[in-house]
């Protein structure tokens, strides 16, 4: 474990070496390393049976992100991000302390559901501020905060509790539609409302990435709860309808698609497509081993420290570095799904799966965006991008996962009640 932290710290040092500001970087490195060592010891104490890989994986991603952010802007963003990391780790500890029993969360499901919707809506009110064409932030004093990040967690908890309670009902096919067994329409109702609200808010706030993210999480959880493809098919239909409307109504959606299809078109490359083109150039410059941390020129990419953090690392660490990052993401998602599979309650399973979905889908959307696999939608790369709200909410997310996994392993095994599979024995 200590080695892991060491690796991460070394990442920062490697950056620092390339600057002259080694003296300035040292306390930051020490702060982060100390923070992780402390939280590791804490975790051993409080949740010794928790999944041992979740925190280290998150830590390495976070530290790599920190290194990249620091490298881009050692004066302002770097130190701020370190502070946010400390805040995030503190939240991790707090959540782990407060949420002793995750099943209790399901009691507050409606409260959390409303809180989630409320948080989503706040930026749309006069309290919100528009930054970079998306109205997602609220300003409290000098800090701007993205309530949507926390809203995600609230909504997943709500959905998990709601679906756990109702999964049998939702899975029953009670009516027929065009030759398919389709669950009763009324069971779609509350969920559709939920989806509609989130989506409307998202469109109003002009944040396509989150809109897509919410909808995907919703579908994933619904499918896990019911194991019925009808919902997925129905959801995809809704998605394409939404996408089409978005494309025809909003000009900024159209721009995204155009630049995606034809990023090197001379008409766009200097403005609309500039960011994406620079990202691709950065990745290409990186080659196999990269230019070395601090030696590339990733600062050319606009918003490099948030959405395009992956391209920065791609340029400076090359394919090897990015592949390692992807493996870490994959492992983290795999652990999350494993925690979901092992969880003893329906609520726990759905919650772990939903939380993992937030994390995994978000990573896919933005990674596919910066590599031009999908149209670009600006959301943060979990744990790596610059951004306090995102970091904090991701730390809370893994705290919940760790809690679930600890509780799964800790509880005495119940009497053997697993169902027998007669079909398998011929």
């Amino acid at each position, binding site marked *: 474990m200590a*080695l*892991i932290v060491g*690796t991460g710290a*070394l*990442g920062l040092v*490697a950056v620092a*070496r*390339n600057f002259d500001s080694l003296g300035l970087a040292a306390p930051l490195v020490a702060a982060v390393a100390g923070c992780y060592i402390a939280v590791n010891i804490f975790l051993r104490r409080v949740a010794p049976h928790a999944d*041992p*890989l979740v925190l*280290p*994986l998150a830590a*390495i991603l976070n530290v790599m992100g920190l290194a990249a952010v620091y490298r881009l802007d050692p004066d302002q963003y770097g130190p701020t991000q370190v502070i946010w990391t400390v805040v995030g780790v503190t939240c991790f500890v707090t959540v782990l302390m407060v949420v002793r029993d995750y099943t209790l969360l399901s009691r507050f499901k409606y409260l959390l559901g409303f809180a989630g919707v409320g948080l989503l809506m706040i930026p749309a009110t006069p309290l919100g501020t528009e930054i970079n064409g998306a109205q997602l932030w609220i300003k409290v004093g000098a800090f701007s905060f993205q309530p949507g990040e926390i809203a995600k967690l609230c909504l997943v908890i709500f959905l998990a509790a709601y679906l756990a309670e109702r999964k049998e009902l939702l899975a029953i096919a009670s009516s027929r539609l065009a030759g398919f067994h389709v669950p009763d329409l009324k069971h779609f109702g509350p969920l559709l409302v939920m989806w509609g609200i989130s989506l409307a808010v998202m469109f109003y706030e002009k944040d396509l990435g989150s809109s897509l993210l919410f909808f995907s999480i919703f579908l994933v959880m619904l499918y896990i709860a019911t194991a019925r493809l009808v919902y997925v098919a129905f959801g995809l239909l809704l998605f394409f309808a939404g996408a089409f409307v978005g494309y025809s109504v909003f000009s900024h959606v159209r721009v995204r698609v155009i630049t995606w299809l034809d990023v090197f078109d001379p008409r766009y490359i200097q403005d609309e497509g500039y960011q994406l083109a620079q990202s691709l150039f950065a990745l290409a410059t990186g080659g196999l*081993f*990269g230019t*070395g*941390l*601090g*030696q590339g020129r990733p600062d050319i990419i606009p918003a490099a420290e948030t959405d395009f953090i992956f391209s920065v690392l791609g340029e400076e*660490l090359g394919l*090897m*570095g990015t592949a*390692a990052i992807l*493996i*870490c993401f994959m*492992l983290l998602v*795999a*652990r999350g799904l494993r925690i979901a599979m092992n969880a003893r309650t329906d609520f726990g399973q759905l919650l772990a799966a939903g939380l993992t979905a937030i994390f995994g889908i978000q990573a896919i959307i933005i990674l596919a965006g910066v590599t031009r696999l999908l149209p670009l939608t600006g959301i943060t790369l979990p744990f790596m991008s610059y951004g306090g709200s995102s970091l904090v909410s991701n730390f809370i997310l893994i705290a919940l996962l760790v809690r679930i996994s600890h509780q799964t392993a800790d509880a005495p095994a119940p*009497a*053997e*009640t*697993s*169902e*027998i599979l*007669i079909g398998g*024995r*011929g």
Partner: protein
Amino acid sequence: MPDLVLDLLKYVFLILLYIFVARAVRAVFLEMRPATAQNRAPVSRSPARTAPPPRGSRKAPRKAAVVEGEGLRGKSFSLNDELTIGRAEKNTLVLNDSYVSQFHARISPRGEAFVVEDMGSTNGTYLNKRRLTAPAELQRGDRVKIGKTVLEMRK
């Protein structure tokens, strides 16, 4: 700083990064292996923790032998007719065990095969460590656990 040093540092960093990844992947594999090892190891040590019989042994059993349980160990019962198991005197196999219900379980012929069935017992009937929820066909090597008694299906 000379470029050479920076280059070296770059590779050192990448190597460290991959050492971390390798350790994480190894941890995942190590966790998967004990799961299979645990299933197999106890076969030789304690008979009660038998793994499911190997696939392909589809032959129907002829006898049920008591491999665990007080007083009856070593005895075996022919399966030609219906074998009823429970605490009541009327059963073919009477088990004096407070965890066993009056009429606990039944093994009866069905065609060529034999089927074990729970008769609504309080504490359940286990086939190879799994609680029965429906009648299940028996194969040689299967273990049926009722209360403290374990029956093994033999030829």
